[in-house]
């Protein structure tokens, strides 16, 4: 008898409140569904405007509200110099803008990648007073609104050139140099952050081993450090190139005559009206950017360096 009671008691201990379990399961199921739909909503908001743009770049009619059928006409227009019905668009102007964009992006990327890599190296490999502050300041251009950067750079150039004029009597006008300097200014941070992450992931023993085996500082950099951080440098460079290529705000405030870049050109068209050609150009720009960013991310994720 006593033994029996014990067993029962024991079993009762294991009994659970079935209602509580059901309630729990329900909550968890709702949670799961929520978790599943949450990113879908998020991505929908992120991507739907872009999706609309892409879809309407293939729209047969000029309308941007109803889709009437598929065509490549607008892409054809861009590349074959067929003028749109709207004034101001010509393939020649677009290609000119594209050329300007390339000049700016390539120069800014190369300069920003070199300087950004150097900053990343000194921040992660040496110790100097004020390093922590510099480290924090590095992120500023990433968080400061672009409009602030654009305007502040414009004011900076204005002051600088005014001062130069009062000194030498020479007047300097904004142009490629101001755009490129402005782009370098905001790109350095992005490059430095990406390269720094790569450096932080690299075992410092590799560099010590190189020095141990007789490599001086330059040889250590040339044969060990640089090859190991190269994927990070390329990734940083691609990121910089992308940011530079589609930058509008900073460019807008610092451009001069004859330096219209592609995004500024598109903006100019937009002022007249939204045409399917704009959609087509934007789609092409977006595809290029996406591919570059994709490669950049692949490179950043490559091979552990521990």
């Amino acid at each position, binding site marked *: 008898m006593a033994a029996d009671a014990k067993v029962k008691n024991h079993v009762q201990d294991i009994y659970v409140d079935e209602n509580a379990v059901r309630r729990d399961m329900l909550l968890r199921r709702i949670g799961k569904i929520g978790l599943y739909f949450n990113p879908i909503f998020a991505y929908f908001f992120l991507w739907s405007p872009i999706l609309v743009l892409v879809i309407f770049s293939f729209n047969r009619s000029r309308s941007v509200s109803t889709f009437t059928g598929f065509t490549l006409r607008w892409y054809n227009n861009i590349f074959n110099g067929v003028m749109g019905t709207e004034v101001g668009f010509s393939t020649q102007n677009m290609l000119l803008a594209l050329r300007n964009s390339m000049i700016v992006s390539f120069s800014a990327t190369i300069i920003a990648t070199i300087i950004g890599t150097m900053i990343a190296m000194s921040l992660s490999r040496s110790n100097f007073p004020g390093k922590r502050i510099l480290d924090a300041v590095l992120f500023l251009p990433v968080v400061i609104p672009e409009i602030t950067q654009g305007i502040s750079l414009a004011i900076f150039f204005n002051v600088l050139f005014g001062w130069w004029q009062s000194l030498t009597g020479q007047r300097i006008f904004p142009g490629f140099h101001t755009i490129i300097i402005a782009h370098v200014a905001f790109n350095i941070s992005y490059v430095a952050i990406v390269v720094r992450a790569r450096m932080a992931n690299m075992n410092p023993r*590799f560099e010590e*081993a190189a*020095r141990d085996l*007789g490599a001086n500082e330059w040889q250590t950099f040339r044969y060990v450090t640089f090859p190991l951080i190269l994927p990070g440098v390329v990734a940083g460079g691609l990121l910089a190139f992308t940011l530079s290529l589609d930058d509008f705000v900073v460019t807008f405030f610092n451009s001069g005559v004859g330096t219209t870049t592609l995004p500024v050109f598109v903006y100019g068209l937009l002022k007249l009206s939204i045409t399917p050609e704009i959609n087509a150009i934007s789609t092409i720009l977006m595809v290029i950017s996406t591919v570059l960013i994709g490669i950049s991310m692949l490179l950043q994720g490559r091979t552990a360096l521990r």
Partner: protein
Amino acid sequence: MAYDIRLKNVVKVFSSGKHKGVVAVDNVSLDIEDGEFFALLGPSGCGKTTTLRMIAGFEQPTEGSILIRDEPMEHVPPFHRPVNTVFQDYALFPHMTVLQNIMFGLKMEGLSGDAAKQRAYEALELVRLPEVANRRPSQMSGGQQQRVALARALVKRPAVLLLDEPLGALDLKLRKQMQYELKSMQQQVGITFIYVTHDQEEAMTMADRIAVMSEGRVLQVGSPRDIYEQPQSRFVADFIGETNFISGTLESHDNGVGHVRLAQDTVVDVQMPKNFSLSSGAVTIPIRPERIGLLPNGNDSPFHNMEDITILTGHLLDSQYIGTDTRYTVKIPGDNEIVVRIQNVDYLETVDFEIGQEVQVFWSLKSTHVLDH
């Protein structure tokens, strides 16, 4: 005697971050001879790696000086020092093949082409890995990487090879094999090895001399036998192997033999080290468990009338069978508990002891020794 490496009163204080200053190495002086296999032994965090890194040139001593072949190394960067390092995690360059890794050091010397290749292959022969030349480090096992790291350092023909726990990442069996190979390799090439380890057995089996470190200081330098037989401090006695510490009071000494009272009616004789700091007072007698014999009380010990044998009576508290030996815990006069290890052999008559039984423990004067704390 030619010294390859001399450390004179070397101090290293790390003063970075929030901590005021960590004294990683505290007034270390070492003279390491040409061709010696020298082990730096101590628990984790005692400053072994820091000492090695100062010799290699990766860290600068805060005080003191380091001489390699009588040259002061103060302003000599690592790439100009005639030493090479085998890192604990090997640090093989991941973007190079094994051959490129090994030839890297030669390339930095300006040696290239067939001559360099030949030396690299010789080095691979030496570590018995000739067939992996074109592999990447990531395609090899830990043991193979270890050998490549060794070849990469040895191909430079350094005066001194520094090894920082080089076998730490290997499994036990491989470690034993590599211990043997490293030792014979060292004898073959005749290079001075400075070998960092926290494994006392490894140090004992491989080294010609051992420096035992604790909290940044070198406590004792000597041959494995010296360190084991004549530990000069409690720490060394405890860290190397197992030791009983018997406490008593030194009453007098004559002819190098001290008389230590354990209890009112018990005085034992011990060997006195030269220049012992005390002539009387509280002392500790360290004695190894395997140096003590055990017999049931009442038996006439075969050693009874021999000179220099100390015999004490006590009773058995515990016995523990551990395969090769049996460990007996015995309470002896003066509230001392000691461990006695008796090897389990079949060619002698075995005695079955019972817990609580009265027993005799005995040891030779040669096994004794005294510490001042």
